[in-house]
């Protein structure tokens, strides 16, 4: 077992969506091999033991793939390291005695439910507006009848690895969802299966994105820098290109 360390936390506490929130200070005994969320487990054990309310935070798979965890740590969504989610962040990335500020995702389209938990249903509604291929179960041809060059398949896969966590929105000063929408549009516009709805899809998804109150993109690139899956900024140019083409075609 490695040496123990102590960190000071400033955690955003907010009783519910309507309530006014504020920061609370805590100090936690931890060690370098503990994950950031396990450090929060320790904090919550302590709070429960002291008869106080534990901090509500979202988490589930704790292996960086479900997209549920969502903390802004010292100003960075998912913390200081690149290309990982909060659950994959370990305390070895901090020093003994550090003060760590922890906030929820900040965006109008992601209202706070409680403390560090936010509501991301807006992402589901964007997908429901067009982020799919309309193929009912049973309509498919043999899988190898559709040949897809490896480089195209790989590029589509890269875009498809988006976990829908919302870090891109949280990182953006405009709370734009262009990286999220661009990832899905890129995946499906690259693949032959996505061609039939290529133009209607991009228009519907962008309309829904706007209706949800996400902001516009001003190309600062913070989204791609903070994306735990390394979705490249180029998906936004693809999105813009696809959207323009669809609009020019009168969609």
């Amino acid at each position, binding site marked *: 077992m490695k040496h123990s360390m102590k960190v000071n936390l400033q955690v955003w506490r907010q009783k519910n969506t309507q309530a006014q929130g504020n920061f609370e200070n805590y100090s936690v005994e931890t060690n370098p091999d503990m994950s950031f969320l396990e450090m929060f487990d*320790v904090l919550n054990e302590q709070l*429960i033991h002291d008869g106080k309310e534990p901090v509500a935070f979202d988490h589930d798979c704790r292996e960086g793939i479900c997209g549920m965890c969502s903390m802004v740590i010292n100003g960075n969504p998912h913390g200081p390291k690149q290309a990982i989610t909060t659950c994959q962040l370990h305390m070895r990335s901090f020093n003994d005695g550090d003060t760590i500020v922890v906030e929820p995702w900040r965006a109008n389209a992601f209202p706070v439910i409680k403390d560090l938990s936010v509501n991301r249903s807006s992402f589901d509604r964007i997908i429901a*507006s067009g982020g799919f291929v309309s193929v009912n179960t049973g309509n498919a041809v043999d899988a190898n009848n559709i040949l897809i060059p490896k480089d195209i398949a790989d590029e589509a896969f890269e875009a498809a690895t988006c976990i829908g966590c919302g870090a891109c929105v949280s990182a953006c000063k405009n709370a734009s969802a262009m990286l999220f929408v661009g990832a899905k549009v890129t995946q499906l516009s690259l693949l032959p*299966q996505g061609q039939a709805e290529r133009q209607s899809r991009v228009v519907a998804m962008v309309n829904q994105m706007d209706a949800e109150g996400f902001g516009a993109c001003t190309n600062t690139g913070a989204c791609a820098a903070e994306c735990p899956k390394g979705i490249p900024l180029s998906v936004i140019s693809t999105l813009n290109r696809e959207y323009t083409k669809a609009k020019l075609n009168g969609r």
Partner: protein
Amino acid sequence: MKLESKIPEGPISEKWTKFKSTAPLVNPANKRHLEIIVVGTGLAGASAAASLAEMGYKVSAFCFQDSPRRAHSIAAQGGINAAKNYQNDGDSVFRLFYDTIKGGDYRAREGNVHRLAEVSTSIIDQCVAQGVPFAREYGGTLSNRSFGGTQVQRTFYAAGQTGQQLLLGAYSALERQVGLGNVKMYNRHEMVEVVTIEGKARGIIARNLVTGKLERFFSHAVLLCTGGYGNVFYLSTNAMGSNVTAAWKAHKAGAYFGNPCFTQIHPTCIPVSGHYQSKLTLMSESLRNDGRIWVPKKQNDDRHPNDIPEDERDYYLERRYPAFGNLVPRDIASRAAKERCDAGYGVGPSKMAVYLDFKYNMMQKYGRTEASKHNIENPDDATLLRLGKDVVKEKYGNLFDMYKQITDEDPYEVPMRIYPAVHYTMGGLWVDYNLMTTVPGLYALGEANFSDHGANRLGASALMQGLADGYFVIPLTIGSYLSGEIHTKAIPTSHEAFEAAENRANERIQNFLNIKGTRSVESYHRELGLIMWNKCGMARNEKGLNEAIAEIRALREDFYKNVRVPGTDKEFNPELDKAGRVADFLELGELMCIDALNRNESCGGHFREEFQTEEGEALRDDENYKNVFAWEHTENNKWELHKEELVYENIKIQQRSYK
């Protein structure tokens, strides 16, 4: 009640075909009036909800996460099996069927498993049509790899994120139906009661986890697609929220629980590192394609792995099982690792780990191929390693990154340290061929049911089963029941059965809040997990199981006296959610131990130390235990055992051998 599996008559290869062409149907006009509730939105739930909605049924879907896309199917890494025979290596529906039955140590139904193998090919077609970006070859065809317990390459994959890609495919189909108004989606809702009226499932009570409110929902049929219960062990590869609650409430409402003690312990997980640990992380079975498992030949060897010469390493799987080598099924690989560690050959700080080493294949397999591709004559070791590393990175990059993130060690440079961990539960709600439980109108799909994997599941078969059940089985089998329900009008949720169910749920919640004890829910969960792991884990015996039962009962009693659940039931309160789940685990754990105690044989993942061969392999007792244990909950934590005999007409059962 007599258990009827309802397997169609006829030769094995014609059962499903015949069923498909003769099953009762519901006409489109009637479908619009029939309501179906789907609980859980993983591979089974999302695919079922989408497919049923496409057919015209009115569907409501529920998940406890903040979005259906987060269900734990998302974390499946390695791949999905299908009998496509794209590799021309002799695969067929029969071979997949045979491998699965044998892999399950002859404790699964022939009829169900053959159907699974038959529909496996359509799953791949459907997923590709949805735009799931599977790995491909340069010519544009789909790529395959091997998984344990097979000698063919039938596993389709998307890097180490196959579950994610398949789930996002099913999720997109589900969201499409949400957008079309055919599915009403309820996020952050947890099912807490099944409502039965005159013996039939007629809806659920779900708790809105944001407001805390108990809500009533009517339906003509209820589908539980709620996954497995591995979290009863506290430490597992399951997500933190994965739980047994929906299945357990169904069990208490009359659904029998099948083979609860059949647990899969996955051989390749990152070892436990400290007492604060909240979960364990899997390193995909696909890594055993290229990773070789070894321990030092000397006990308590503290040398750095890279300093241990080749002839002082014991590649114990290759030594014991030459025919399958590192790709033996999971139960066998796990027990072999435990055996080496218990005998004092374990490595790492805890000595409870073995090495998974990629160096040999990085150099000799991929390095050499790449070198010859690039016309490099007589490459040195450094060149081979460099060339091989790039190939391994492409195949498993995300897994290697994850390993490094967690352990702070670079697996490209040093072998991974791995140890078995709880991963999957073969047991689950007993279902017939239609996937219906013993409660009419109540179905269980995917990991939540007991059906297809016997006593041990083969790798890459869980994704196959979840999607088979959801896309291709339930859309057809549900017609047998719903065709008889076309005259049933929607029952108002003011009905007394809904009232009573809601009251039961509310009483439980008030009880948790009123105990006001001193111990956290988490502390009980940890303690239960330890009992289960030590006494109902990789090896079990009569004495330990009896002790575990007594300990679990005592722990349960203590829970209801001393647990502290903060907050109220009128707000977002994750501690209260957890209390309900742990309370259910505290009952399930006992049933698992009782089940293990009653099965006086070893088979698959169920290893009773009293029943083993001289070489330490599982010793089945086909005379007495070639059957499914289905437990009926009779009253407050009392159960009655029912048995379903398994019939093997197409496969000759024998001692399972991978030597």
